[in-house]
């Protein structure tokens, strides 16, 4: 592909219209789902409106989405200049966006199944400051997308002194970069279908499915309860199984097995044939059955790595890695992060962290936090909870069973404090910090001290009396906290982090 061709203003392929329409429908459903299903009101509304009106409304919405997509598609233009990509778009207001390659931290290529026969892809890129994908080009030729990707990476790899002031790369380095850009790269990790299924069963997606299914079932049960009462099916089932409790347990059990399987299958489809490839300065992840995605990350733009295991994952030893990048305010509020997930790992594969970034391997052991963590939460924390419960019971504000339930919860909280204490741990070699934490699940946050944005030391009255402190390192992707460290050690770590940040030659943002 010639340079002239990428320098010209280009349009999206006609098939991109299908993508835009589907994306519009998906957005409409996502934003209005609560109206359709919300608290049964949606169902009552549908009953009142009738099927014909519903169909007409649906067609109207579809037409609006189609018209919006048509205008967007017609007005959308993009081109690449020497060091940036330009995008012109907008329905009512014309918007022209210019993104410098130097700011790009993540390039993604996606190929939904309906793009495959035409060899089209969806190209997108992210910058550290953007709330969402900064640039998205749905439906451009694969060849063009790959040229864009390689030019972004290539220009970044061999950026001139005028851009970053770091001078020309050394010949050997430039050669290695060129080799890296041209070669297919070395395979670092490939996830088997079994590993993906295990990851899916343990992922938080299960709880989302459970919540949705629980809501759907309760609504359905409410709507058809009268019909069910007329039938003798339930009664006969209850009779066969001896009691309603058994039926309930069986139902919940079957639902859980179904949801575990569904969650596993979703992961297999989403991460189908997941591969992680080492391309020198970049890491490339490819996966997906219905939509094949390729994500390219600059190594120097990775600001943190989390090695994580969910509570269910602990049952069958499934771990995953989150590669973290600089987030922003909006995403912090929405609870989303710039990250790439490497699914389906075993503990024996933990050396992958060190292969992704040199020196980031998990350490052999972790230092525990101070034992007074237990003493503080067991004495002060639980006492603060116990006093209102006991007072409320003593003043007869609450019935006896509520007080007992409160007491029971306190017992659970006592155990939870002990579990939290057992899981907290930290290790550092002066350059890196590893922080282990968790309650039922476990995670190890790996951060490079040079990337720290801000260091905080927090002490409450109890901690000041016992010479303890909480250390919080604010990183570009979020905070890493280690509670109840000896104050001397926390101060030492803080000094080390500040020193590393102030002498760092590369800022990973």
């Amino acid at each position: 592909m010639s340079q002239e061709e990428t320098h010209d203003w280009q349009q999206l392929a006609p098939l991109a219209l299908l993508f835009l329409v589907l994306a519009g429908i998906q957005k409409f459903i996502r934003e209005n789902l609560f109206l359709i299903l919300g608290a049964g009101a949606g169902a009552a509304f549908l009953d009142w409106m009738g099927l014909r009106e519903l169909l007409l409304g649906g067609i109207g919405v579809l037409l609006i989405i189609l018209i919006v997509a048509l205008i967007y598609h017609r007005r959308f233009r993009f081109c690449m200049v020497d060091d940036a990509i330009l995008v012109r778009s907008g329905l009512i207001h014309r918007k022209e966006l210019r993104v410098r390659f130097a700011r790009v931290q993540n390039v993604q290529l996606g190929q939904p199944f309906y793009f495959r026969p035409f060899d089209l892809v969806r190209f997108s890129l992210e910058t550290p400051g953007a709330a969402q994908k900064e640039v998205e080009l749905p439906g451009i030729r694969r060849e063009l997308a790959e040229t864009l990707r390689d030019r972004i990476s290539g220009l970044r790899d061999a950026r001139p002194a005028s851009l970053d002031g770091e001078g020309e790369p050394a010949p050997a380095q430039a050669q290695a970069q060129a080799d890296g850009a041209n070669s297919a790269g070395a395979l670092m990790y490939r996830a088997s279908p079994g590993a993906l299924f295990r990851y899916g069963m343990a992922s938080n997606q299960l709880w989302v499915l459970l919540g949705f299914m629980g809501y759907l079932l309760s609504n359905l049960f409410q709507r058809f309860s009268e019909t069910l009462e007329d039938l003798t099916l339930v009664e006969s089932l209850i009779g066969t199984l001896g009691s309603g409790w058994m039926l309930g347990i069986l139902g919940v059990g079957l639902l859980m097995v179904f949801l575990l399987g569904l969650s596993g299958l979703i992961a297999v489809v989403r991460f189908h044939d997941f591969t992680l490839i080492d391309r020198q300065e970049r890491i490339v992840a490819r996966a997906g059955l219905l939509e094949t995605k390729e994500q390219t990350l600059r190594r120097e733009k990775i600001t943190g790595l989390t090695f994580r295991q969910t509570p269910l994952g602990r049952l069958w030893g499934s771990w995953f890695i989150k590669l973290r990048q600089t987030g922003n305010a909006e995403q912090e509020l929405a609870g989303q992060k710039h990250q790439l997930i490497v699914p389906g790992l075993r503990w024996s594969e933990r050396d992958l962290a060190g292969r992704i970034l040199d020196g980031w391997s998990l350490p052999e052991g972790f230092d525990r936090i101070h034992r007074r963590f237990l003493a503080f939460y067991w004495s002060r924390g639980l006492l603060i909870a116990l006093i209102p419960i006991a007072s409320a019971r003593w003043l007869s504000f609450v019935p006896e069973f509520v007080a007992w339930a409160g007491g029971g919860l306190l017992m659970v909280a006592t155990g939870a404090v002990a579990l939290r204490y057992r899981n907290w741990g930290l290790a550092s070699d002066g350059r890196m910090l590893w922080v282990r934490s968790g309650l039922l699940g476990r995670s190890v946050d790996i951060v490079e001290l040079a990337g720290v944005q801000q260091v905080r030391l927090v002490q409450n009255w109890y901690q000041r009396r016992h010479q303890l402190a909480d250390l919080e390192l604010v990183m570009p992707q979020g905070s890493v906290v280690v509670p109840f460290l000896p104050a001397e050690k926390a101060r030492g770590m803080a000094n080390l982090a500040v020193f590393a940040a102030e002498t760092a030659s590369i800022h990973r943002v």
Partner: protein
Amino acid sequence: MTENTLNFSNDPVDPAGLPDFYEATLYPVDDHWLPYALISRLWFFLAALLVVTLGPATGWIDYAMWTFWVALGLVGLLIWTTVVTWMDARFRGWALREHDLIYRAGVVWRRTVILPFARIQHVETTSGPLERLFGLTRLKCFTAGGMSADLSVLGLDQETAEQVREYLLEQIRDDEADTDGNRPATPAATLDGDPSE
């Protein structure tokens, strides 16, 4: 072995030899901070007082039996707020070192924040109507880590806030100009006075 591995070095650093942020002498906040903080926090107390006094009159709160305890609670809240604010004003402070800004605040949870200049993206000074009344200005330092990584230094008088802002902007410019990452050790003595005074 990848190129990353070849270029990688990991020399040990002696933590004991590093400058200790704890030894930095902090400037106290401006004298007007205490009355400003008391008045700004008193609004919450007044709101609570309003609810307590107007509640029974409107009929949606009835605590005739608990009048003494409610009054005691309010007095306790007032004393607590005053004491905490007074302690906070005594403890709150800030310092500039060659390469970072230190800010300390809090009474129950004492928080010391160290913000390296290299991480500051831009600096601004703002002041609300009440702050302007007391001649106070807050200094906001924005970093790349989002809202949680930004730092607001409260309780500076307007002149000092402007001086610190200029100093920080100068440091950021130096940082950008010095491409090797070795910024010049600009003395923090552009500000008048000694913090220990």
